């Protein structure tokens, strides 16, 4: 309309030329007169109260021939729920006008509408659901020690996995003994851990990561710091005595972490291979994906190298066929479709969707992107936030640094950092979540275990979200590696003081 009303001769000439060129379909040269308006998307979304909807509301304005009508002013208003929306917007060349609805303070149904006087279909109604902010943290929430601890005196402990009534923990580097052992713990009726066995892994000096399949039949661990680094698979047919099934070795480089995921009916292990010497392309750090459906014969199905100029890949998180690789400063977090379907990727051919380098936050010496957790919020239905751990400089056993960074991945192709949590004098390590209660548990090395309220919208500094904190081994005897919520207890594995059972009440 704006162009058609132009009085500039050149403008008229251009419009005429455009009209002539667009006449291939045999239409006449009549001006585009808007006739109708209809919804073009955004209806039926949900978000927490007070939050903006994930996608804007959109309407399409067309003329009598169904052609898009640009330059049409559309009025927007909230009709129910008390939210906010722009008063107007104008259609573009595609005939689309959009506006972002921010929900009001009350949970329940919200309504808004788009209106152009005189057009068929006006007003266009939209509805949205405001979810509650989730249940507030339980009153009197407090992290405290229930049992365990000081139970691995001869070695430093590393990772943890709990399944059923057993827990499995790794060992790290060298104390009085080399950290080449997987410890097996029985959890009593009240959840208290008792050491019942151990498995020695040959050729390595650190058991760096441990995980058990959901069915409890298979345990995988990663090993490094020795000539026989790689991933090792064990049967848990007797959960008290893991029996070796197979391995995939990568040599001196070793594997820093391993993550299990079932994709299209097959079981895969996502292994973070360390850099190694000499520094040539073949020794680059890499994401190695193994098909371990037959655990006696792990098969490498793909290798995604990362440049040797950086420290390489430290961890992965895989969910819904999306793999997040945490690759230090360069390239930071890298998001792959490995079977989700959104970009045609598979474990055999991961399709990179995006990458993001999180902020340094003044922590030495760079973003140090180390680990993460993609939060699926069952309360709001959102899959919006990715929590990333920054592993800053540390003196293992006494000093650490590094923040928790929150990245909005509601659009996986365009991740955006939106918030952070900083704790003076300590740095974060591995995460676990109580997603139903919207609580993030973070191992925090010398600060022990930290619990954060991550309900609702996360933005900026989250220091006021701290729910609780505990040093399981006490000051000077705490350097916590990982946490896991299981059987109603929170278990923490501490490098110095071993396996602990914690309570949150």
């Amino acid at each position, binding site marked *: 309309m704006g162009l058609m009303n132009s009085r500039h001769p050149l403008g008229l000439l251009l419009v005429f030329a455009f009209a002539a060129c667009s006449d291939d379909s045999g239409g006449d040269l009549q001006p585009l007169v808007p006739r109708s308006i209809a919804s073009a998307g955004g209806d039926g979304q949900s978000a927490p109260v007070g939050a903006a909807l994930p996608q804007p509301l959109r309407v399409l304005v067309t003329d009598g021939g169904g052609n898009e009508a640009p330059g049409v002013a559309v009025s927007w208003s909230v009709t129910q729920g008390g939210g906010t929306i722009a008063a107007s917007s104008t259609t573009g060349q595609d005939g689309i006008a959009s506006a972002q609805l921010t929900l009001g303070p009350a949970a329940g149904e919200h309504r808004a509408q788009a209106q152009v006087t005189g057009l068929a279909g006006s007003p266009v109604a939209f509805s949205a659901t405001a979810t509650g902010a989730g249940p507030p943290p339980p009153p009197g929430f407090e992290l405290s020690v229930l049992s365990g601890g000081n139970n691995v005196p001869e070695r*430093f402990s590393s990772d943890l996995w709990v399944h059923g009534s057993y827990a499995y923990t790794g060992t790290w*580097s*060298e*104390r*009085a003994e*080399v950290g080449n052992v997987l410890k097996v713990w029985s959890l009593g009726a009240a959840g208290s851990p008792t050491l019942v066995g151990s498995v020695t892994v040959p050729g390595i*000096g650190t058991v760096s990561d441990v995980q058990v399949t959901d069915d409890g039949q298979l345990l995988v661990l990663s090993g490094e*710091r*020795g*000539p026989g680094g790689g991933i090792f698979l064990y049967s848990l047919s007797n959960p008290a005595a893991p029996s070796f099934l197979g391995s995939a070795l990568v040599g*001196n480089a070793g594997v*820093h972490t391993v993550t299990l995921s079932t994709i299209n009916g097959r079981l895969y292990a996502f292994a973070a291979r*360390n*850099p*190694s*010497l*000499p*520094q040539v392309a073949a020794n680059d*750090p890499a994401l190695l994906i193994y098909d371990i459906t037959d655990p006696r014969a792990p098969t490498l199905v793909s290798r995604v190298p990362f440049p*040797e*100029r*950086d*420290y*390489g890949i*430290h961890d992965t998180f895989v969910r819904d066929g999306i793999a997040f690789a945490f690759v*230090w*400063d*360069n390239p930071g977090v890298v998001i792959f479709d490995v079977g989700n379907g959104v970009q045609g990727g598979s474990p055999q051919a991961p399709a990179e969707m995006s990458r993001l380098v999180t902020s340094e936050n003044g922590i*030495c*010496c760079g973003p*140090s992107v*180390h680990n993460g957790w993609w939060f699926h919020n069952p309360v709001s239905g959102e899959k919006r936030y990715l929590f990333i751990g920054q*592993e*800053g*400089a*540390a*003196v*293992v*056993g*006494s*000093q650490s*640094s590094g923040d928790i960074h929150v990245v909005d991945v509601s659009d996986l192709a365009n991740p955006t950092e939106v918030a952070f949590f900083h704790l003076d004098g300590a740095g974060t390590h591995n995460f676990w979540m109580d997603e139903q209660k919207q609580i993030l548990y973070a191992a925090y090395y010398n600060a022990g275990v930290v619990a954060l309220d991550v309900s609702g919208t996360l933005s900026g500094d989250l220091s006021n979200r701290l729910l609780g904190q505990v040093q399981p081994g006490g000051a000077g005897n705490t*350097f916590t590696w990982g946490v896991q919520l299981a059987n109603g207890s929170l278990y923490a594995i501490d*490098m*110095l003081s071993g396996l602990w059972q914690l309570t949150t009440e």
Partner: protein
Amino acid sequence: MPRNQSLGELRLVQPTIMAHAGAATNRIRLLATLNLEGLAIPDGELTPGAWGEGFIDRRHPHTYLHELMVSAHDVLGPADGPTLVSLALGKGFAPFGTDDPMARPVLRYPVNHHLAQILERVVVIAGVRAGPVALEASLFNGDEPERPGQWPRVNRFGDSWSARATVFPIPRLELQGSYARVRSPEHRPGAGTDQNKWSLSGRWADRSLYGLVEWARTSEAEGFFVFDSFLAEGAWSTGRSRLHYRFERTERPEEERTLDPFRSVRPHFENTTQGTTRWTIHTAGYGFRLGDATQPLGALPFVELSHGRIADVGGGLFDPRVFYGKTSFWSVSLGVRLNLGMEMHRMGRYGVAQDTAKEPESEHHGTHEQ
């Protein structure tokens, strides 16, 4: 030794061949040092407290080409009056800190080698000397070598720099202060942490007496890790005999080791240590020169005794009592220094700094072994 062990070794150490050449009335000079430790001690030399380049409690072998420097002296000629200006470039030492321990009386390497010297870099040095003051500034590559046959990363040239000021208040006395900013020395591709380094020293040398007092500090990862060193050493020569002594108190990082207790994990993939230890070491030795000093072949049989203590400082999970089984150690070395041709030059001094060091008498070569 690690795991409460003891260890004896017979080694050929510090085998070097040096060459000097001059042209244009010695205003253009070539200085070269080949080091054959890559062949003689490929797995390093037992040296409690030593660390660097992935070796720990073993001194690493140097690169085969230890120095190859070309320098232009008094490049402005009479135009700058008595002031001397020099330019030097090649592979060698950055102007920082004190002399290479190979050129000093004590056989056993000090713990502070990687705090007090910056060596085996591609370096360009500009120097000025006016009266009793010499100033040097340099650009170089930050990366340390990882094996004897490795060359510096030329594409990293210029990512690091250093400056050194030396004052000569009276003949034979030398005072220096220096600073260096070294980019990612322990991660060759360049992703590692950077170092700020300081050094102060005083040195005396005449025909019978030698003394050195030095302090050095390395601050890494924006000050998260700080390592200090104090060292004092001296030698007294009379007739055929030489006595030497060194006191050192140096802090070093305790890095994660591989299953080989003498190696730490390389390449780094995170910015962590397991703590800091402080090594306090007394080393004393006696040598007796065989043959005539005027002969080209010299031999100095010697005995050297070290006693040291290890302290855990600054926290971290490394506990020397657990790892070594004790917190003190003894070390005895018996050997002979062999020299053919000229005496060793002060490695790491080029241009105006070389002019202050002992002048090469002629073009010779030398060997040096235990």
